[in-house]
Every structure is written in structure tokens, then in C-alpha cells.
């Protein structure tokens, strides 16, 4: 049975992280960068599209410089709202600015084995297992390819991965691990098999595509070609910047936002020039590099600020946002993981980022942990509850109950209590036991979270994918592999 999906909606909490003047300043800086500095588009097709629309193209360096008017005009055709479809239509996700959904993170290279607890190289079975567990949770609304199916050939790996997810879950798949035209075309064929036809797929995109930019101020050629194919078929497509302070971006936050914005906005404009009104989204996971090693940090105050600021930018352009949150740099589920994942997710949620990526990783999106996956779901639930704020009306003031109890006494036997006690948050993994109970076992959230993941994997039966469709997909992948 497919589960209802939990999303943050109609929030009472609000944060103004950038003033309208500041947003405009970042936007103007972005346009200046695109026009004066340029952005690298190493794809023949992309350069031709830019040239046809009057942008200045340096074909040797593959750098495009486009006037502000061209970019602004192109962005006007972005649809402001659309839905990501699921195999089960009750799980469709509305990207309307009033829903925050969380997905699984991706694409990692190692897994802490769910049974042995030993860290090892990821494989296709892990993709199946993670998808199956995600299918059962109410928090996880959609999938990224969580880990790389390294036991499959590099040229078709991305296809094996999305097939595995569809076979184990009815929820929407957003792949971040397909980055060339050939694989993108095949993925769309596969999605078409589920949707019924290419036209139905356009109406019900059960697949979306996320491509990383190559910061600073560049794109990857294969990614551009894949994105253009997706846009052609109405598959929602986004460019993600991961510009990082000190290394791939300036040391300052505003400058890094402008660099990342230039990458995303120029990529988005390209898709709109080629296919006006194609569904697009903004994607981002900026961070600060560690000043000592240059390494990806995956957390810290800078990440939290980016999490909140980026949705203000994507709102300015009127397009949905897929935002990197969670993704702690911690090596095991611990204090650091709790802080980083809670604050990054809270900051991205309070500004209503449409999609959050995502649950499950340690060591900066490299090592999958089933315990972390479940605990991240709980973090989302806590934030979901917090975002509802405090409702103040006659019913919630409960004056009758207050009068009935009077000074002294207690509220335990009040009807009002019975009616509202289940509104209070009930954690799954927080330790609220007595000290003695804890001392007898000395177990904690990590043990319970892992137990839960194991139980789901043992018992949850997702709605199967039609076997005929699976067979067609196998044939399609095999035909590519034999070439």
C-alpha cells in the first residue's frame, strides 16, 4: 500500500533573510557576470542555441556572454508551478511554493551495510533496498539515486538505477546520475513505458532530471545535452550549483551566491530559449570549503544561510527550488550530524524550498547510513511540526478546561486534553526514558533507527511495477549495452 506523503504546507513561521533590495543587487550582479565575464557551455548544441538567439559566443573557449535583456526575456517563460508525478498519482508532488518535500540524498559511493554494519562499495541492490524503505516512510516524498550501482557498467548505470527505484517504489524519481544525451534519451523512453506514451509523460512527468554545474561559471557538456533532451520532452530539469567559498567561489557569501546564480540562471535560460515553457527548477547546494584542507564541508553556518537565501532567489525568478540540506560532513551519526542536518533543513524549510535533498548520508554525501536515513526523517518531522507554529484561537486557548481545573490540580483528565494531546509531537528516536531504563540498555536513536530500517526492509511490499514494463526496460538497457 502506498503511503500518504508528509509535506510542510501553510507554515506560520517566516524569515526574511534578504531584503528585496539585496535580492535585486544579487540579480544585477548575476546579469553582469553573465554579460561581462561569461559562462562556459562546452556543448555544440548549447552554443548553437545561444548564437541563434544573439548571444556572444566564443566557440574556442566555449564561453557565452549574453545580454541582460536576453536572459530576463528567456526566464519569463519558466512555468511558475507544476507537479512532479508519481507512479501512484496520490503521491504526486505539487511544486507551487506552498509545499516542502524531502527526498533521499545522492549519489554516494559507499554504504554501511544494513545487516553487517560494515562499510563497503555501493551496488544496485542498495539502490533497491533504499528505495523500498523510502517508499514506506511518510517523510520521503521522492527519490534521488541514493548510491551508485557500481556493479553495473558506467554507460548504462544511471538506467539500472532508475529502473531499480521504480521497481521498489511508487514515488517520484529525480535522477542526478544521468549526464549524457544517450542515457537521457533512454531514461525518457523508460519513463514513457510507465506513463504510457511520451505525450502522457509530458502531462505526468514521473521522472525529473538534475544536472550539476561546473563551478565556477561553467557547465558540463554531457549534462547540458542531457538537460536539453529532457526539456524537449517536458521532463522537469534543474541545474544545481555547488559553488563553494574559497575554492569554486569567492570567499564571501554574497559573491558565492552570485556565481552560483549565474550558473543556474544561464543554464535555465538556455533551456527556455530552446524549449519555451519547459518545466525547470533551480537547484543548489552551496557550501564553504574548509579553509585548511579545501575539502567540502557539508555543514556549518554558511550552508544554513545558503539554504535560506537560495529560495529567495528562486522565488525571484518564479521557479521551484531543489535545495541541498542534510548531507552532514560527520563520519557517523553523531552530535555534528544532528546539528548540521537540523539547522540546514530548518533554514531551507522556513523559506519554503520546494524540494529538500536529502536524507541518509554521512561524510558529505558519500557514505549511506540506514540509521542516518531514518533519523533524518525524524529531523524533517520535527521541523514539519515546528513550522506549523502556534495556533491561537478560542479552541486552542482552552479557557473552559483552564477554568475547570482552576488553581492547582492537573489537566490529565480533561476532555480538551484528550482531544488535543495527539497534536503534540511524538518522537520515534528521542530518548525520553527514565535514567534507569536507559542505564539498563544504554542503547539510543542510532540503534532504534537501524532497527526500524531493517524492519521496513523485511516487511514492506511496494506496489510492484508491471512485469512487462520491467522486461521492456531490461531489453532497452541491454540493447544499449550491446552497442
Amino acid at each position, binding site marked *: 500500500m502506498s503511503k500518504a506523503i508528509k509535506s510542510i504546507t501553510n507554515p506560520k513561521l517566516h524569515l526574511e533573510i534578504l531584503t528585496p533590495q539585496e535580492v535585486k543587487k544579487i540579480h544585477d550582479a548575476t546579469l553582469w557576470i553573465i554579460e561581462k565575464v561569461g559562462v562556459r557551455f*562546452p556543448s555544440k548544441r548549447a552554443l548553437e542555441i545561444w548564437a541563434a538567439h544573439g548571444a556572444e559566443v566564443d566557440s574556442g573557449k566555449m564561453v557565452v556572454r549574453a545580454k541582460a535583456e536576453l536572459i530576463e526575456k528567456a526566464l519569463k517563460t519558466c512555468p511558475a508551478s507544476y507537479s512532479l508525478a508519481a507512479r501512484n498519482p496520490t503521491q504526486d508532488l505539487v511544486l507551487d511554493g506552498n509545499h516542502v518535500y524531502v527526498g533521499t540524498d545522492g*549519489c554516494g*559511493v*559507499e554504504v554501511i551495510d544494513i545487516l553487517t554494519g560494515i562499510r*563497503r*562499495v555501493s551496488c544496485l541492490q542498495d539502490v533497491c533496498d533504499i528505495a523500498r524503505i523510502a517508499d514506506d516512510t511518510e517523510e520521503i516524498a521522492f527519490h534521488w539515486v541514493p548510491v*551508485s550501482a*557500481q556493479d553495473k557498467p*558506467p*554507460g548504462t*548505470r544511471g538506467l539500472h538505477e532508475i529502473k531499480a527505484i521504480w521497481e521498489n517504489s511508487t514515488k517520484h524519481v529525480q535522477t542526478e546520475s544521468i*549526464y549524457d544525451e544517450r542515457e537521457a534519451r533512454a531514461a525518457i523512453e523508460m519513463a514513457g513505458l510507465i506513463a504510457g506514451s511520451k505525450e502522457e509523460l509530458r502531462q505526468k512527468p514521473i521522472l525529473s532530471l538534475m544536472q550539476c554545474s*561546473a563551478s565556477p561559471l*561553467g557547465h*558540463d*557538456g554531457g549534462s547540458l545535452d542531457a538537460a536539453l533532451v529532457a526539456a524537449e520532452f517536458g521532463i522537469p530539469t534543474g541545474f544545481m550549483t555547488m559553488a563553494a567559498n*574559497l*575554492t*569554486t567561489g569567492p*570567499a564571501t557569501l554574497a559573491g558565492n551566491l552570485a556565481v552560483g546564480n549565474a550558473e543556474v540562471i544561464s543554464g535555465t535560460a538556455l533551456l527556455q530559449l530552446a524549449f519555451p515553457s519547459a518545466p525547470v527548477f533551480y537547484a543548489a547546494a552551496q557550501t564553504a*570549503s*574548509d*579553509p*585548511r*584542507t*579545501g*575539502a*567540502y564541508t557539508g555543514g556549518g553556518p554558511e550552508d544554513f544561510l545558503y539554504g535560506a537565501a537560495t529560495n529567495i532567489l528562486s522565488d525571484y525568478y518564479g521557479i521551484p527550488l531543489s535545495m541541498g540540506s542534510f548531507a552532514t560532513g560527520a563520519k557517523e551519526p553523531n552530535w555534528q550530524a544532528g546539528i548540521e542536518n537540523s539547522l540546514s533543513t530548518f533554514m531551507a524549510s522556513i523559506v519554503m524550498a520546494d524540494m529538500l535533498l536529502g536524507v541518509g548520508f554521512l561524510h*558529505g554525501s*558519500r557514505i549511506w547510513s540506514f540509521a542516518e536515513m531514518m533519523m533524518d526523517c525524524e529531523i524533517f518531522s520535527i521541523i514539519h511540526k515546528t513550522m506549523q507554529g502556534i495556533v491561537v484561537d478560542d479552541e486552542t486557548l482552552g479557557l473552559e478546561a483552564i477554568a475547570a481545573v482552576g488553581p492547582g490540580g492537573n489537566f490529565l483528565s480533561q476532555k480538551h486534553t484528550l482531544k488535543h494531546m495527539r497534536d503534540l509531537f511524538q518522537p520515534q528516536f528521542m530518548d525520553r526514558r527514565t535514567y534507569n531504563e536507559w542505564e539498563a540498555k544504554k542503547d539510543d536513536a542510532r540503534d532504534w533507527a537501524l532497527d526500524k530500517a531493517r524492519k521496513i526492509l523485511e516487511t514492506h511490499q511496494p506496489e510492484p511495477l508491471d512485469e512487462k514494463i520491467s522486461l521492456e526496460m531490461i531489453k532497452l538497457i541491454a540493447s544499449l549495452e550491446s552497442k
Partner: protein
Amino acid sequence: MTEDLFQKMAQSILDGDSEIAVVLAKQAIQTGVDPLEAISKGFVVGVNQVGANFACGQAFLPELVMAGEAMKAAVATLEPEMQRRGTTRQVLGRVVLATVEGDIHEIGKTLVGTMLSASGFQVYDLGVDVPAARIIEKVKEVDADLVGLSALLTTTMVKQKEVIGELDKLGLRRKVKVMVGGAPVTRDWVQKIEADGYSEDAVGAVGLAKRLVGLD
């Protein structure tokens, strides 16, 4: 007088100021200072100081990079004079660096190159998206001691294995050590493809390179 010049040279590296380093290198040539001494008593002193500052937590990565670039600029300026005098600067080893075919991610590889060259290695950086054949060709051309292969994607990481296989075929594997790097590279992967080592960051790569050429 010369002592004063050496001190300024060291300071230019500490400040990460390539322009001043070049001016001082030219001054050394004009005043007849032995370029090898200019390096060992001047510029290298600065490099070592930045390294020490970094090791004790005072300096940050950008300071290391800028010191490395200033050092490179100074050495390049002194190079013609060394040739004229028929002397060469001793290098710790010759390293061919590349991001493998199909992969355009550059920053980690470039950073490793800067660190290695600042530490006294001769670095031949072939850039990004480099096919195995070109890497092998360069290894033979410069008689390399080390090859450094970078990859950010699990799909391109396999090319690291391909290069090692090619070196093997040509019987070069015993002579040329291979170090690999990139976010998806793990110890297991290094063992699987029989590389000689990997590092998770650029500073660690210098230590690794020194070990691989038999220093430290």
C-alpha cells in the same frame, strides 16, 4: 646586502606575492647571485615557513596556494639563468597530472599540482578530460616518476584503472608510481585498481608523493 635580498625573497613567498617574487628573482640575476642560492637560501625558506605555519594551524589553504604560485613564478624567472650557467635545480621527482577522460573537474587536481610544484616536484599538468594514451605519452616523454589521476564521478573513476592497465602493458608499472584522487576514491578502490596510493586532500598528496619517490 645579499642576506637582505634572501630575506625579501622569503617574505615575498610568505606574502604570496608573485609580482614581487619575480622582481626579486630578476634583481638576483642582475646582481650576479647564484640562482640556486636564491632558491635555497631565499624563496625556499619562505615556502618552508608557510608550510610550518600551515602545520601549526596558523595559515590557511589560500596562503599555501599563493605561496606555491609565487614560488613557481620565481623559479620560472630564474630558469634561463640556471640554463646559462649550466646548473639545474634538483627536483624531488617528475609528476604527470591529469583529470581522466570524460571528467572536467579540475580544482582538486590543480591544487595538488600547485602543492607538489611548491614542494620541489616538477609537475606536468595535462588538464582535464585527458585520454589514457596522452597520459602515457607524456609519462614516456618526460620520464615521469609519478602519475596523478583525478576523477570526481564514479563513471569516470574507471579510467584511473585503464591508465594503470596501460602502464602495466608497457612494462612501466614498476618504474612509475600511480596516485589517485577525487571525492569517490576510497581505500578499497585504490586496492582494487592496484594504485600505489591516494590522498583525500592536496596537502596529504605531497606527503604521499614524497613517500612514493622514496623520500620521508
